């Protein structure tokens, strides 16, 4: 492809692949942009041209991923740690579904996630196979084009970049080559503010956001801008964020949500629960009508606890609860 590329004019190349401009700037070749009528191989040397061809190919694969969305993810069971066949032989999660993952530390939750992330083909210690839309997916999900199946969100994550909310979201949108970036940035900020309940301004540095605001911004950003169709959540703290709405935002964007949690309210919000033990998926539980009804009860309990917390913060005495 680099041979064809060299023969094209700068204008043709930029017209076809607008992101190539960014590549040229990164390479310190911004001056090339001022010579639209020149053939590329006149102004760019062969090694850079080769890299540019590779970059364009990768970006095309990366952006093209939007054409065939991941509608479902199937995990074909392998074996448990003791070598016995995995009790759940097949599990399919669909876009817009929330699957909770429960099990003690060391039970194999991380391995399950790693199998999904690596799109296992019987080549991991569990022998599991992961299918996308019912088929064995190609290598691009294995980091070859920087594509990753799983976006992650956990309580340990913090923002580390020294940027305002606006600049940060612009940077993310730009790196994703997202169409209509301004609309997306607005939408993320609006959703994050709704989730956090405690609004923040666009010029707030992301490192100064409160815990709830940070989490809200991370969730809204994953929903709108992340390339990964699967979202793994490791608990969502029960303070400063509307958790039901957070899940709804992800579901609306057709994400497949996997949530490791031992919080009864979160667990019952899921469509199904996968129980992990001994390195295997041992059971899949769909919440019964009884469980669903208890969710109402649990939420009432939770609201009472939150109210006590509020009173404590306001300096009240808790002799009457």
């Amino acid at each position, binding site marked *: 492809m680099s041979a064809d590329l060299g023969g094209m004019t700068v204008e043709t190349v930029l017209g076809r692949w607008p992101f190539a401009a*960014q*590549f040229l700037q*990164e390479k310190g070749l911004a001056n090339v942009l001022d010579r639209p009528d020149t053939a590329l191989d006149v102004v760019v040397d062969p090694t850079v041209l080769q*890299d540019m061809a*590779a*970059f364009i*190919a*990768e970006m095309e694969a990366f952006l093209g991923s939007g054409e065939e969305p991941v509608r479902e993810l199937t995990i074909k069971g392998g074996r448990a740690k003791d070598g016995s066949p995995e009790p759940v032989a097949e599990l399919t999660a669909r876009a817009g579904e929330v699957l909770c993952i429960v099990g003690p530390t060391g039970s194999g939750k*991380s391995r399950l*996630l*790693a199998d999904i*992330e*690596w799109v296992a083909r019987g*080549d*991991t*210690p569990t022998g599991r196979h992961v299918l996308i839309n019912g088929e064995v997916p190609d290598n691009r999900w*294995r*980091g*070859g*084009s*920087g594509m*990753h199946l799983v*976006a*992650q*969100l*956990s309580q*340990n*994550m*913090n*923002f*580390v*970049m020294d940027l305002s909310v606006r600049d*940060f*979201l612009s*940077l*993310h949108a730009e*790196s*994703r080559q997202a169409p209509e970036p301004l609309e997306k940035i607005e939408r993320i900020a609006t959703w994050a503010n709704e989730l956090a309940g405690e609004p923040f301004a666009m010029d707030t540095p992301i490192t100064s956001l409160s815990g709830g605001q*940070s989490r809200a911004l*991370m969730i809204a*950003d*994953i929903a709108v*801008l*992340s*390339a*990964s169709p699967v979202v793994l959540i490791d608990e969502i703290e029960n303070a400063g964020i509307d958790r039901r709405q957070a899940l709804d935002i992800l579901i609306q964007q057709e994400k497949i949500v996997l949530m490791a949690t031992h919080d009864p309210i979160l667990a019952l919000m899921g469509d199904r629960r996968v129980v992990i033990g001994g390195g295997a998926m041992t059971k899949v539980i769909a919440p019964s009508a009884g469980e669903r009804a208890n969710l109402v009860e649990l939420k009432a309990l939770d609201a009472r606890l939150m109210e006590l917390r509020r009173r404590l913060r306001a300096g009240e005495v808790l002799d009457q609860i």
Partner: protein
Amino acid sequence: MRFVTVSGPPAVGKTAVIIKTLEHIQGEGHKVGVVKFDCLATEDDVLYRKRGIPVRKGLAGALCPDHYFVSNVEECVQWGLATGLDMLVSESAGLCNRCSPHIRGVLAVCVIDNLSGTDAPRKIGPMLKAADVVVITKGDIVSQAEREVFAARVRMVNPQASILHVNGITGQGSYELGTLWSGTRETATVEGLKLRFSMPAALCSYCLGETRIGADYQLGNVRKMDLDLPTGAKTDGGPGGEP
């Protein structure tokens, strides 16, 4: 024997990533070993030895670490073969960002972390640009958006590499990295192979132990910054031209 060169800036978690990855390969019954290159001091050899991984360490001391690496790498390969290793990993820190130990025909891995800032991929240079596999660490403590931005920056510098996220503490992603290492081809010698990128040029008076500052003491491969100094400014004797 399979040979893998691992490089990366200091303190990104190279040793942790190598240990986690080699544990999987050891677990499959293969004999693995490490050569650790550093400048002044390292205790990482103890960490490897604790896990039953034979290790040799090389301290460059007063020499340019990469020149030291390339002058010793063939002997290291021969040590690996003599020790009966199935896989040898060389670990070296790219201390000046201009360094790159990567060899044509030998699997080249660069480790960088999410905390090093979005400009880091551009600054790191040949050890990242010329790598086959880029491992990004410390992804468990930054946001998904920052991971994606960082990975996109890496892709911009090195569009051809496989990019893997590995957690050096839990080992997540290290099994997968191990499959890439195991899939590399056999190396019996690196004699006659070429570096992917030339080493930083050297040989000025300071390479040879000069410590005094001033134009009079600068001999050999010396290059001056363009600071646009006013004409007539003294550059060799300080203000007032004191000797």
